[in-house]
């Protein structure tokens, strides 16, 4: 990114790795060093559809990708998780770690010309906290927001929140105009989430036709000097993955993050002239696949049975065959791109003989009918290109262990959600996002108090006081190395306890043409602002 500033996350202390000291930055920044960026041009991306352009009330990449272009954030996240200035030029963390003071850039204005003030920042945080699915996880410990003057905003915390700054970039806390959204209407259903959207970011909405396309144009009054480079970004609505592949091949799409291409399509696209593929830019999102077992009921309440399954399922094979070798086997609850990832976890090399012996030991010998036991494996309706073949593989490989698996494919998302959130299942293929700070995307699966009838909570029913203790410690540990050490222990315990059986990580790719310069490839990738992106001739 062009904003060249800040120290890395590693080796730093304080909130999100920031030392408790004032941090100054200059926003008139030098362009990226690796190329000669050019101003102008229209970049074509794509969208598969969205119901809102406001990331404060709607999570997910469909809203987040355009949303991060329309709305600015207090900070942004650079390469290696560096925290970089954005709307906030500087910030300081109090010695007791219980307050953070931000200074806003001078002269920043919303798309309608109204100035961006500390009141808008306060409103944005309160809105996100109340309406975003992770609002409480991110900002639950922000007890108050003070606005001593228009350019200063102070977050008062009731406990240290190490991941706070990571949550202040536009994807997770967009800066909203209070004069538009503060009219008392319900925020989730606010009409301005889709019509006449007034943002604070590098691009303005020119056309929003949910049936056909979203067009964003350059915000000439953007507060970052000489940015954005692009004149216009077009997001045509293209739902069919094969059509997208053909459009990419022909050059009708310049940049396709979250492209949904399969490994076979990737091979085809790599062969196309001027088309490139990268898996960079998804570290902070960290999507992982896993086999989720309902731990409340037999046989999966027995760790030996779960261990036997882990020994029978060859994730190396799955990574090679299903994902064409374009991903790696998952080792634990954290994605390899997460800053707190630790490889120091037990492995499960395939050993069918040992798996059979463990099942015998657990009291599940082969019965007279030739089986040890049978179970139903739910297969969700989403990410079917990964879930279906993985489920079919599990069915086939467990048959060799004399375990019967009946696959139950959900007709739609709601049906699957209903079964899992009601704990009315035996096992399911599943997957979820880590998000950069584990308090958002990881704790939810392991905390005892999150066993709730909500999807992607602790639906499997795992509860261990020792784990809870470690989660609580990690949530407030402000020393980055000490925090990494706690998360290493958490990962180890999660794998030892076989809370989930981890499948290969997802193959998520960005496909882009040679025309695209300064590809958004920081840990937040395409969900970060694109004001440095430019087009070559």
């Amino acid at each position, binding site marked *: 990114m062009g904003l060249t500033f800040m120290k890395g996350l590693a080796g730093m202390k304080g909130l999100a790795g920031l030392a408790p000291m004032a941090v100054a930055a200059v926003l008139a920044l030098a362009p990226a060093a690796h190329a000669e960026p050019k101003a102008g041009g*229209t970049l*074509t991306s794509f969208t598969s*559809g969205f*119901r809102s352009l406001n990331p404060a009330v*709607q*999570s*997910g990449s469909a809203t987040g990708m355009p949303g991060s272009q329309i709305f600015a954030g207090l900070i942004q996240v650079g390469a290696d998780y560096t925290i970089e200035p954005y709307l906030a030029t500087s910030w300081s963390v109090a010695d007791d770690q219980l307050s953070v003071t931000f200074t806003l850039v001078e002269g920043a204005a919303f798309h309608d010309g109204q100035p961006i003030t500390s009141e808008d920042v306060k409103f944005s945080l309160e809105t996100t906290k109340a309406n975003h*699915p*992770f609002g409480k996880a991110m900002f639950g410990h922000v007890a108050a927001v003070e606005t001593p003057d228009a350019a200063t905003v102070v977050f008062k915390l009731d406990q240290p929140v190490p991941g706070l700054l990571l949550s202040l970039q536009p994807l997770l806390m967009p800066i909203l105009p209070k004069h538009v959204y503060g009219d008392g209407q319900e925020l*989730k*259903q606010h009409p301005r989430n889709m019509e006449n959207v007034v943002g604070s970011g590098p691009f303005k909405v020119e*056309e929003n*036709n*949910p*049936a*056909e*396309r979203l*067009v964003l144009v350059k915000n000439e009054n953007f507060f970052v000097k000489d940015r954005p480079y692009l004149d*216009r970004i*077009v997001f*045509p*609505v*293209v*739902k*069919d993955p*094969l*059509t997208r592949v*053909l*459009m990419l*091949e*022909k050059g*009708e799409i310049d940049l396709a993050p979250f492209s949904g291409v399969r490994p076979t399509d990737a091979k085809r696209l790599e062969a196309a002239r001027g088309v490139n593929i990268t898996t960079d830019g998804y570290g902070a999102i960290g999507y992982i696949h896993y086999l989720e077992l309902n731990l409340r009921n037999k046989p999966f309440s027995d760790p030996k049975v779960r261990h036997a399954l882990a020994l029978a399922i060859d994730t190396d094979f799955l990574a090679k065959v299903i994902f064409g070798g374009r991903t790696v086997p998952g080792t634990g609850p954290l994605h390899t791109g997460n800053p707190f990832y630790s490889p120091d976890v037990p492995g499960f090399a395939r050993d069918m003989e040992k798996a059979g012996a463990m099942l015998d030991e657990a009291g599940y010998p082969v019965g007279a009918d030739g089986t040890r036991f049978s179970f139903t494996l739910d297969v969700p*309706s989403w990410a079917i290109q990964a879930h279906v073949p993985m489920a079919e593989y599990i069915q086939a490989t467990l048959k060799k262990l004399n375990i019967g698996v009946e696959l139950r494919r959900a*007709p*739609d*998302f*709601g*049906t699957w*959600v*209903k079964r899992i*959130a009601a704990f009315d299942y035996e096992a399911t293929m599943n997957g979820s996002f880590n998000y950069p700070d584990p308090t958002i995307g990881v704790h939810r699966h392991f905390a005892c108090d999150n066993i709730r*009838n*909500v*999807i*992607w*909570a602790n639906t499997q029913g795992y509860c261990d006081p020792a784990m809870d203790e470690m989660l609580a410690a990690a949530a407030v540990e402000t020393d980055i190395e000490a925090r990494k050490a706690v998360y290493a222990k958490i990962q180890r315990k999660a794998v030892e306890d076989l809370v989930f059986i981890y499948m290969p990580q997802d193959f998520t790719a960005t496909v882009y043409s040679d025309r695209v310069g300064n590809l958004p490839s920081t840990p937040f990738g395409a969900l970060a602002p694109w004001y440095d992106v430019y087009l070559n001739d």
Partner: protein
Amino acid sequence: MLLQTLRKSANAAALLLAVLVLNFAMIHLAPGDPVETLVGEMGGSTPELIAQLRQSMGLDRPLYVQIALYVGNVLQGDFGHSYYYDQPVLDLILARIGPTLLLVVTALFSATVIGTLLGVFSAQRRSSWLSHLVTVLSLAGFSAPVFWVGIMLILLLSVAVPIFPIAGMSDALGSESTLGYVLDVARHLVLPALTLGLIYLAFYSRLSRASMLEVLGSDYVRTARAKGLPRRLVIYKHALRNAILPVVTFAGLQFGQVISGAVLVETVFAWPGLGTLAFDSILRRDTPTLLGILFFSALMVVVMNLATDLVYRRIDPRIKTR
């Protein structure tokens, strides 16, 4: 005539009412819960919000009450509120119905006219290359699935020989003049309309060929020829008028099928019509939107059938006297 038209219109209205009630009952009895889907899309929720949503959508009431309320609202022009888009269903449908009608009518009209002409030409020269072409085209049109035809046409006419755009209805940076816009839409329309219409083109060419052959062998055509009438007059005035009757009948009946085909074609070509909206609504359990689309699809079919009836009467005066 007026009485007959009124009677047919009353029948059509009764049919639409039945469609409304049956669709509502079937969708609400099918598995899948719109509230669960909606909260899933939101990323999670609480039991309180789920209960609140269920209540606000009226899903906590008995089915017969829901049906009665729905029919009553529809009669007043209120098709409900989309769960997913959070907009009135009527607004959503009116925004999308134009592109679908454009696609469907273009496909069906082209297929009928071109198919009939091909059939007529090939019937006159049974062993000509055109006749063989019609046969091959029919076989291909019938055998190939719509989505496959779409992808093949894209590969051929958009990727290999880049004549037409792959997807969408217009360019984002298209011409600002009306004529420029019309030409832009026409350029985008060619491949989806061809994909959707190919199977019907095949069908109508076979149908009109067979019908024409039968008519050309009939006594009155032979008489007309014996009287020395010009060949063109015999074929296009006397023979074609009778030969075209089955084509008109089928075109009316098949309108519903063409709309069904549009769901796939619109998805492949990212055409911003009712088909893609229907596809999304099914996946998202957006029942008010889906019900609205089904109703409007039924309405289009009913109107088309009435229109067919009128055209039929115009072509064949014998119908009027019955």
